[in-house]
């Protein structure tokens, strides 16, 4: 019995450790004062102690809106690239005739395992020599390749649950290979493709190291701007931005879970 209480107390503490830091940010972003801690007024729930000034400052300061546009342009382009190439490759990898399957898989997943700093340094050297450093295109290519593993893993997992007999059935009913793919296979693996794409987008939306090494002023994304904010002049505006990002994370999370359920896969954690 005692053991059970210790176990539950420990787990509770662990969950608090996981979630509390994120939750603390939200109220602090409404702080009327430029501090990073709860003022006495906030603790008394004095309405005066709360304000939206940091949220206003996000929109007044063009830096953040520009960063958002950059993040979206880069994120969406990288996601489209990674998702389309990644889905095709996953279709090839799902075929048992694929030679050197494990090696290829290892190659395609390696961008996820390689420390970003190494990738960023290498990309800086390589892309500079091609004149792609400090361009949107360079960052898009870099983010796309960093997003590839997420798409490959997710779509491959989805395909492993796909019944190949459906494709034979489609053929027996008179549909050619292309039509079978569009009408039967793609709609059925679409949730997996979409959640792979979301993973890739989230990865790009949160990526800072490559942007740090390869991006110029023109390529400042939201995380890059936050990095600058944390390093240089730490103002509660960052907390307001962070609150937005938390909301974004929760939305992505629910979308992915919803897609997972639609895809008929096991709930989170995979297997």
């Amino acid at each position, binding site marked *: 019995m005692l053991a059970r209480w210790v*176990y*539950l107390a*420990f787990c509770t503490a*662990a*969950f608090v*450790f996981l*979630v509390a*830091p*994120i939750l*603390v*940010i939200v109220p602090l972003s409404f702080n009327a004062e430029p501090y*990073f*801690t709860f003022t006495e007024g906030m603790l008394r729930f004095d309405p005066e102690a709360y304000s939206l000034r940091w949220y206003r400052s996000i929109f007044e300061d063009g830096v953040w809106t520009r960063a958002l546009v950059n993040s979206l342009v880069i994120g969406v382009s990288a996601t489209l690239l990674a998702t389309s190439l990644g889905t*095709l*490759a996953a279709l*090839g990898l799902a075929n048992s*005739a*694929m*030679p050197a*399957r*494990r090696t290829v898989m*290892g*190659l395609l*997943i*390696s*961008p996820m*395992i*390689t*420390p*970003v*700093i*190494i990738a960023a*340094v*290498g*990309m800086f*050297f*390589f*892309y500079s*020599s091609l004149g792609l450093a400090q361009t949107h295109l360079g960052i898009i*290519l870099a983010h*796309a*390749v960093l997003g*590839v593993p997420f798409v*490959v893993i997710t779509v491959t997992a989805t395909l492993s649950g796909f019944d190949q007999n459906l494709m034979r059935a489609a053929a027996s009913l008179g549909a050619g290979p292309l039509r079978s793919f569009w009408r039967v296979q793609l709609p059925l693996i679409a949730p997996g493709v979409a959640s792979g794409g979301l993973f890739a987008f*989230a990865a790009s939306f949160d990526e*800072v*190291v490559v942007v740090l090494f390869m991006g110029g002023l023109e390529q400042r994304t939201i*995380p890059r701007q*936050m*990095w600058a904010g*944390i390093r240089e002049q730490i103002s509660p505006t960052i907390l307001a931005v*962070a609150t937005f*990002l938390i909301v974004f*994370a*929760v939305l992505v*999370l629910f979308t*992915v879970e919803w897609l997972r359920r639609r895809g008929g896969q096991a709930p*989170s*954690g*995979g297997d």
Partner: protein
Amino acid sequence: MVDQVIAETGLEASKQQARQRRRAVGLALPLIAFVLASFVAPLGTLLVRSAYDPLVADALPETLTLLRAWDGTSALEEPVYATAARELLQAREERTLGQIATRVNRIKSGLRSVVTRSVRKLRNASGDSWRETMIGIDDAWGEPEVWLAIRSAGERFTLRHYINALDLMRQPDGSIARQPEERRIYLPLLWRTLAISLGISALCLVIGYPIAHLIAHAPPRRANLLLLLVLVPFWTSLLVRTTAWIVLLQTQGVINSLLVAIGLVADDGRIAMIYNMTGTFVAMTHVLLPFMVLPLYSVMRSIPPSHVRAAASLGATPFQAFWRVYWPQTLPGVGAGSLMVFILAIGYYITPALVGGSKGQLISNMIAYHMQTSLNWGLAAALAAILLVGIIALYVLYDRVVGIDRMRLG
């Protein structure tokens, strides 16, 4: 006859297989090409950079030819001085002199100013003997050290960066020895990185195991809710999570203020919990914990509760039931989670950079330092290459233990 049919059979089977194979490869090929071009090629460039530096060799070709013929001790003759002066002035015109000086300086410190200052003065110098002029500007030009340094910086292919990165040095006789203890920087940092990563993996396992267990065996509704508590941090921006720890842990932060408010800590005795090793440790454990919990959870969920019950019915104590029946079955998850956390921790950059202060920096931060501050790109590349080799080894290990095709997300 039979043999012939078998042969034809094999032929037809292999023809059909070949067709299938072509199709599979065709589908995967665009992505393979893309990854090779935009990811593997950069890593290749990095490896080249770590051992290949043509700048000095290209700028001072004739000087270097002369120096290579030199025995390294005897006094140099006028032609060397004349050629060097000409090529150095040329380099100054082409604005590569600064980079040359930096490289020479890395071989023997103090030579940067010798080179740049001398060449500036050489511009206005005139005379019959470049030798005397140069020695007149700086005595150092009369010593072999400068020339040896230039000759060494002029090697296109060099292991110099690796020698530096491994805290070794080349002795005057050309042999390689370890740096004296107090001048070793990178190996201790590498060990520290490994130790911290190991510590973080262990901590993640200790925290992650019970909560994965709790989630895996809770009733479905509650399990989903608890899982959200793991997944929200997983999906939340890394920078947001790091910011959160700054907000909590800094001296004027939430926790210190709380401790002061309840009187546990004096206002002038606030605890330094961040911008040091503790900061790195706490924040990285938080960031990496989901990577431990998720694989553990998925393994534990597949263990039927009847196993532990069966053990109990056979007379095992709860501890025995856990240790002999449950724990062994979770080992794949433990392996997958620990290896993944370890791999990710070793290469971590952002979190230590933001909350690690000077004591909580890892090898990645050193790479960034040499890229951005000291501008010793060759050394940065060598350090990155060493880290890369380690990561590849761990990746292969992960493939053996877990199998990369079994990797799942969130």
